[in-house]
């Protein structure tokens, strides 16, 4: 094995995430070949709210993907306690599993304070006894707000420059963001001018007035809305805690960025579990009817008659027992947390496939009576081929709508489940665990609001964008709505 500076680790959820990315590309390729789906996607492309939210979601997805490349860094002296009793020249790797995002956010991850500190603060949130050297050179104990170890530490003794420094960085960041945005906008206009002819100026006017076939203006607006807060925040985050720190002194910005991956895994991997089950059972029940249909109907009626939360609670409880009584299955804590996250996705998927299955069964029942299917049967085309070639493509729109509609509700469900105590592993950072840890902080004197506020802002943005995109996709794919638009 070559001497890598790190040992790549492929967690199960990473694998599924990359598999999902591959699946999305495959779906894109299939859509490009199918003129109906192609037209529907073009309708989505013209929807301004849809494109703007898709741009935001893409930013979240990039964060999530960066957080899905895991590795174990190599220990410097090669004599660490980890990785299979390293002897001699064999490299030793840390037990801690890091991701590429952790590496990028290394300053945020490692700079711990003692406890709570306000956003952008240079001093702690609570007074404590500190030693101060008085002008006559004596050490005296006073109760005051101590300086933070890292937040604003670069200011040194010059703490009065705090506000000016922040202002400078914000202005600097805004200027950079505007510059970057302008570059992207100019490139878009130039590209459009090249593709459709005319001068870049004319192309820019078309973009501005929304005359282009694709909602470029929404994309650029969303990009501006993303860059303008993000770049100043990045500049500030170098030396401050932009969203403050939590009870154990961890940076809140780091936590919300880590939560994004958990939310995406819950929202996306669950559909990956649910889709094959509901498509297979729904189509089979609708196509073959008879006792197969009766059996599948009985199965989903029974499952759906158990209230969702309770079924999830029962399944998660049982999984917890299984994990707790078999600690030997997991090498690292990250692996255990990851497997628990995946199990949660599986449980959510197994409890939520019934709705889509019912829809697909109904649609298949309707489709199989149409002439073209009967013609195919009369020609002696096999059932498998009829399902694959003639039924599935005509069910795709239902699947796509269900996929995007489910995402936001799953992200919201994660928070609730974590509160109830049947969500992700308590050591895994997610919106749910963040809210759960922070919910009693509002009652503190003085109040600690930043953890909740940060979780709220990020979660709200994510779910709102997902909801708007879902609406755009539904409007474009639902044949009943597409006719009227």
């Amino acid at each position, binding site marked *: 094995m070559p001497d890598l500076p790190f040992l790549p680790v492929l967690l199960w959820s990473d694998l599924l995430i990359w598999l999902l990315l591959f699946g999305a590309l495959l779906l894109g390729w299939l859509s490009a070949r199918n003129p109906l789906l192609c037209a529907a996607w073009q309708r989505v492309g013209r929807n301004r709210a849809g494109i703007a939210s898709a741009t935001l979601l893409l930013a979240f997805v990039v964060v999530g993907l960066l957080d899905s490349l895991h590795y174990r860094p190599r220990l410097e002296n090669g004599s660490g306690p980890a990785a299979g009793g390293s002897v001699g020249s064999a490299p030793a790797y840390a037990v801690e599993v890091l991701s590429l995002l952790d590496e990028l956010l290394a300053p945020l991850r490692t700079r711990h304070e003692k406890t709570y500190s306000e956003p952008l603060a240079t001093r702690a949130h609570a007074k404590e006894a500190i030693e101060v050297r008085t002008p006559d050179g004596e050490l005296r104990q006073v109760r005051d707000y101590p300086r933070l170890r890292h937040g604003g530490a670069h200011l040194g003794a010059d703490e009065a420059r705090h506000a000016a420094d922040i202002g400078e960085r914000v202005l600097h960041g805004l200027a950079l963001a505007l510059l970057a945005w302008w570059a992207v906008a100019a490139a878009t206009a130039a590209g459009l001018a090249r593709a459709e002819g005319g001068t870049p100026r004319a192309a820019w006017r078309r973009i501005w007035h929304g005359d282009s076939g694709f909602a470029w203006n929404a994309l650029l607006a969303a990009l501006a809305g993303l860059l303008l807060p993000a770049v100043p925040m990045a500049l500030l985050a170098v030396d401050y805690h932009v969203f403050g720190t939590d009870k154990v002194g961890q940076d809140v910005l780091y936590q919300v960025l880590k939560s994004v991956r958990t939310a995406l895994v819950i929202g996306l991997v669950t559909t990956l579990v649910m889709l094959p089950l509901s498509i297979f059972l729904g189509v089979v029940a609708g196509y073959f009817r008879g006792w197969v249909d009766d059996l599948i109907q009985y199965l989903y009626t029974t499952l759906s008659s158990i*209230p969702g939360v309770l079924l999830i609670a029962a399944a998660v*409880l049982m999984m917890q027992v299984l994990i707790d*009584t078999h600690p030997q299955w997991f090498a690292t804590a990250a692996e255990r947390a990851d497997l628990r996250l995946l199990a949660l996705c599986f449980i959510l998927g197994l409890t939520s496939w019934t709705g889509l299955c019912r829809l697909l069964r109904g649609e298949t029942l309707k489709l199989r009576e149409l002439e073209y299917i009967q013609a195919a049967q009369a020609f002696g085309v096999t059932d498998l081929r009829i399902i694959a070639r003639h039924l599935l493509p005509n069910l795709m729109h239902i699947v796509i709508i269900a996929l995007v509609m489910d995402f936001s509700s799953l992200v919201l469900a994660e928070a609730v489940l974590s509160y109830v105590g049947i969500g992700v592993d308590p050591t895994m950072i997610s919106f749910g665990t963040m809210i759960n840890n922070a919910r009693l902080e509002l009652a503190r004197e003085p109040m600690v609001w930043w953890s909740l506020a940060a979780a709220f802002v990020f979660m709200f943005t994510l779910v709102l964008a997902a909801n708007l995109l879902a609406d755009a996709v539904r409007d474009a794919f639902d044949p009943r709505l597409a006719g009227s638009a």
Partner: protein
Amino acid sequence: MLVYLVRRLLYAVPILLGVNLITFALFFVVNTPDDMARMQLGVKRVTPAAIERWKAERGYDRPLFINLAASGSERFTDTIFFSKSARMFAGDFGRAEDGRDIAREIRTRMGPSLAIALPTFLLGLLVTVSFALLLTFFRASYLDVWGVVLCVALMSISGLFYIIGGQYLVSKLWKLVPISGYGGGLDAWKFVILPVLIGVASGIGSSTRWYRTIFLEEMARDYVRTARAKGLSEVGVLFRHVLRNALIPILTGVVVVIPLLFMGSLLSESFFGIPGLGSYTIDAINAQDFAVVRAMVFIGSLLYIIGLILTDLSYTFVDPRIRFN
């Protein structure tokens, strides 16, 4: 009618049996009683004797389905499945970990649950249907567009934030009502009002949008055009025709949840410290009290099936064309 009802009730039996089997499989086959005992007694330092004692105390030391050691009908009755799962059909839920009778606990906790859930349900229905009618009346205007935007924004906020924010504003900042707790008698309104209002607020977004879609679909029908052509005012069309015709899709979603109101709400009950069935379930989940969770799953499914039957019955009341033979 009666024949239909009986048939529906009979149809519910295999489904309940299926629910029973699923929960049984979850609780006893995926994890053996030994695992549960180890879990309850603490993973470390458990002796086999302690596990056996734990199982014997709770009757988990019997075989799962068929008891070969017993004779006669005892072969099937002296098993875990019969004593723990099948007896739920008779309303016998056994005892919780703390030794209390679950059925009795459920009866006493139903009241507080209903005190929150029923007003939330009724008020929520009133508010969301009126709001949706308003948006439909002003459809395709700025009011409608911004109303829908507001709905999407409201439904993008996690239910936890509604509760945390509401508790902070109303109870802590304005000090209007106590933060949490529950009391019987006339003072109960003080404890009930905030959970109800928060429950209504958190449901406004998605329900309003759903009802608005239903109303708009009805608005496109021919009978609406006829009614307008007759010279009926827009308000008249909305209330006399659209609302009544939209009742069927509304009832489909609404009647099902009525029996489930007994179960209460997990979130608001535990945040507001209301001694209802929702907080009972949460406590059971946190304490890993399997008997209680099993009982709640069974009751929940039972109530859901009752809700489905009630939904079918309600159709006959709003639509005279629907008859069951």
